[in-house]
């Protein structure tokens, strides 16, 4: 008993010290620091540049096969578990399907508080009632909701501090992305391009929830870009922004990917390039004013949203030091852009891609004929879910490679004219996979766009990626495996069968001197760490010889 008391006092003193050191609020400086503080995970993409590269080195290629589950947290929420957690001062804050959320003790997996939003019954969501996570600033957490609200929470209790309407869910607007905090603003994206919405990116005052600016991804009359829409088709032009963007504090620019034009698979009612759909836009962080854009898929008719995560890096390309933006796109092409001006520096397909031959020097795709959806059907690669999708890639500055969850699937695309009814599904077609396809982890060289190595998955995966400074890549697959690879060569070093398809990315943090690995899967959040006593490397190697695995 006395021992227990002593241990408890020691623990209290220790956590007290942590509390003092970390304080109970998250500052802008911490957000900018990102994963340089390995005890925290405070941005969706780890850092403002979304590299998802942790400096932690406790788990290495030599010991990763000794990772073991330390605890599991059961959410009891069916649906796709797509969130990236926020980790602050030993507490994990994570969101689940249907706008549920939890605060969890990062040491033990025990719940501190939970939240569930009452959602309206008449809400129509096309593609899963998911949420991809909180943002954090000060003592508040921020979450987007399926009925298109932005909520601020008290971090300690989970109580809603304020609740503002982003837009009208009855018109098809919904919100699933984790917000991005830039200075004193909460920047959010919107979903709903399958319902004829007009997309935007919004910024709200973090203290009050008052809207500071709105950037329409589909320009209105008199605005530049409106001429790329036939007639009044811009009014229902789509251009959702349902995956979190990145931020460059030095350039004060926000980079955000935009989604498909509507209707998705029928383009004859909206002739033109349909700006700024399927693009990456660079916005002034203070005003939301567009500085440049690059459109990956002009006049898209295959539902290839550019709502992938833009990864920011500094690289020497062709002998010149460049500020670059790395982008593996749903349309099958990988792109390296100069993020000061949007110029394409490298581009190449990273999966089988039949709709375009290449990206021309002027940045426009060389589109092949007869690749449009028709009533009879047209076979095109990649499929509608794309060469990759919302799942985050990771970038390791030491190897200089971008690690991308890649999907090898083709589809027959059908397209037809469809009448627009506000708030109703507006897709203009259908698509069917030609076969089951397969997936792969691919390491892409941003200098050329070429694939340096790959590890094949049995099924196309929708899971994101984590990189660590010890030279490891962590990822997941559709069949339930969380996996570790050697970053240099793609050698598979570890896997664990979680029991459900993985739709999130692994994350990592340091707590009490121990490196943890988190992975949401199905209705469970798993936490892995190395055992207290590692098996010495020599013995690990000796084991298979003594007892062959069969």
């Amino acid at each position: 008993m006395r021992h227990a008391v002593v241990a408890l006092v020691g623990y209290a003193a220790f956590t007290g010290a942590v509390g003092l050191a970390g304080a109970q609020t998250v500052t802008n400086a911490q957000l900018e620091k990102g994963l340089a503080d390995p005890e925290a995970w405070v941005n969706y993409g780890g850092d403002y540049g979304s590299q998802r590269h942790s400096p932690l080195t406790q788990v290495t290629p030599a010991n990763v096969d000794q990772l073991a589950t330390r605890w599991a947290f059961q959410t009891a929420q069916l649906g796709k578990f797509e969130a990236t957690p926020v980790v602050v001062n030993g507490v994990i804050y994570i969101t689940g399907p249907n706008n549920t959320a939890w605060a969890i003790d990062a040491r033990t997996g025990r719940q501190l508080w939970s939240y569930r939003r009452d959602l309206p019954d008449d809400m129509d969501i096309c593609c899963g009632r998911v949420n991809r996570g909180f943002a954090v600033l000060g003592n508040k957490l921020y979450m987007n909701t399926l009925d298109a609200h932005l909520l601020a929470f008290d971090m300690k209790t989970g109580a809603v501090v304020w609740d503002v309407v982003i837009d009208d869910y009855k018109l098809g607007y919904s919100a699933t992305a984790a917000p991005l905090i830039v200075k004193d603003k909460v920047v959010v994206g919107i979903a709903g391009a399958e319902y004829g919405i007009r997309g935007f990116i919004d910024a709200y005052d973090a203290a009050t929830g008052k809207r500071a600016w709105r950037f329409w991804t589909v320009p209105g009359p008199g605005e530049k870009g409106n001429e790329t829409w036939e007639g009044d088709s811009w009014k229902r032009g789509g251009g959702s922004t349902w995956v979190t963007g990145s931020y460059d504090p030095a350039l004060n620019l926000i980079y955000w990917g935009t989604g498909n034009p509507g209707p998705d698979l029928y383009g004859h009612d909206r002739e033109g390039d349909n700006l700024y759909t399927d693009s990456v836009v660079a916005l002034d962080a203070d005003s939301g004013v567009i500085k440049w854009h690059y459109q990956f898929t002009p006049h898209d008719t295959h539902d290839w949203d550019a709502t992938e995560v833009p990864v920011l890096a500094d690289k020497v390309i062709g002998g010149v030091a460049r500020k670059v933006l790395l982008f593996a796109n749903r349309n099958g092409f990988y792109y390296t852009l100069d993020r000061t001006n949007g110029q394409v520096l490298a581009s190449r397909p990273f999966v089988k891609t039949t709709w375009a031959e290449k990206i021309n020097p002027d940045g426009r795709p060389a589109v092949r004929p007869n690749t449009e959806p028709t009533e009879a059907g047209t076979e095109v690669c990649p499929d509608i879910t794309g060469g990759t999708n919302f799942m985050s890639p990771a970038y390791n500055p030491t190897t200089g490679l971008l690690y991308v969850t890649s999907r090898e699937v083709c589809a027959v695309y059908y397209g037809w004219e469809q009448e627009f009814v506000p708030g109703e599904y507006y897709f203009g077609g259908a698509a069917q996979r030609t076969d089951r396809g397969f997936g792969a982890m691919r390491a892409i060289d941003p200098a050329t766009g070429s694939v340096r190595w790959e590890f094949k998955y049995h099924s196309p995966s929708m899971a994101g990626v984590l990189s660590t400074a010890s030279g490891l890549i962590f990822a997941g697959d559709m069949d339930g495996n969380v996996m570790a690879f050697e970053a240099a060569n793609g050698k598979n070093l570890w896997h664990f069968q979680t029991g459900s398809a993985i739709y999130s990315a692994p994350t990592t943090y340091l707590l009490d001197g121990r490196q943890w690995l988190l992975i949401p899967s199905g209705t469970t959040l798993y936490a892995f760490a190395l055992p207290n006593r590692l098996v010495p490397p020599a013995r690990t190697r000796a084991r298979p010889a003594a007892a062959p695995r069969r």
Partner: protein
Amino acid sequence: MVPGLTRSTWLRAVAVTAWLALVVTTDARGQARTTLDANPLIGQATAIRQGQNIFRGRCAVCHGIDAKGYRGSDLTSGDWVHGGSDRQVFATITTGVAGTEMPGNTSLSEDEVWMLVAYLRTLSAPGGPVVERGDAPRGEQLFWAAAGANCGRCHMVGGRGGRLGPNLSRIGAARSASALEREIRRPGEVIPIGFETITVTTREGKRIRGLRKNEDTFSVQLMTPSEDILSFMKPDVTVDAEPLRSLMPGYAPERVSDADLHDIVRYLRTLRGK
């Protein structure tokens, strides 16, 4: 398009749930309900067009773009296995069919379901179900006789028969006569999940052919023709899949005459799971 999967992709995901084995795709919202006995949108041109769009986006992946049946049943025959009244078709669409691959379509609104029903009514053959040919009792004999087609060696009906092929206890509710005829003559047009042919080769060079019960990046599980279930770790073996090849032999007219085929199919069409 929102969280990664399109509506049609989602549907496909439902269709291949066993394939993807572990996908959790339950919608929290309950299925649409109706208090009506008759379709209020019947014959309305706009509703039929919308219904066609919904059908092609959500249903065609299994029922075919022409609704004549593929993985799912033929919806043009006028033969409604789960009841042909408006209210019964409504219920089949919203709640699905237990024990089959037909999912409950939980995210359709009441209006959308009635639009679908309005569209389906335009497809049904006038004058009710077609009269089927063949003699069911004789077909049943052929089905079980070792000297006949011997289907029961691999297929189970009502608890009797083999385990290698799909259980046919309710195949008459799931497939049209023409689809069954095609599958007997030329198996492989549709191979259900869990019945794809694979060959595993061990390091020692031993080759084992069987039906893929499951597979992921690291392991594979199969059933051999002698109904043994085996599991292998991939580093120890190579796996070759034959996606379009069924383990079931094709029954050419020399082996099963047209008359015998009609009798067997007539018997199969009586199998409704009761």
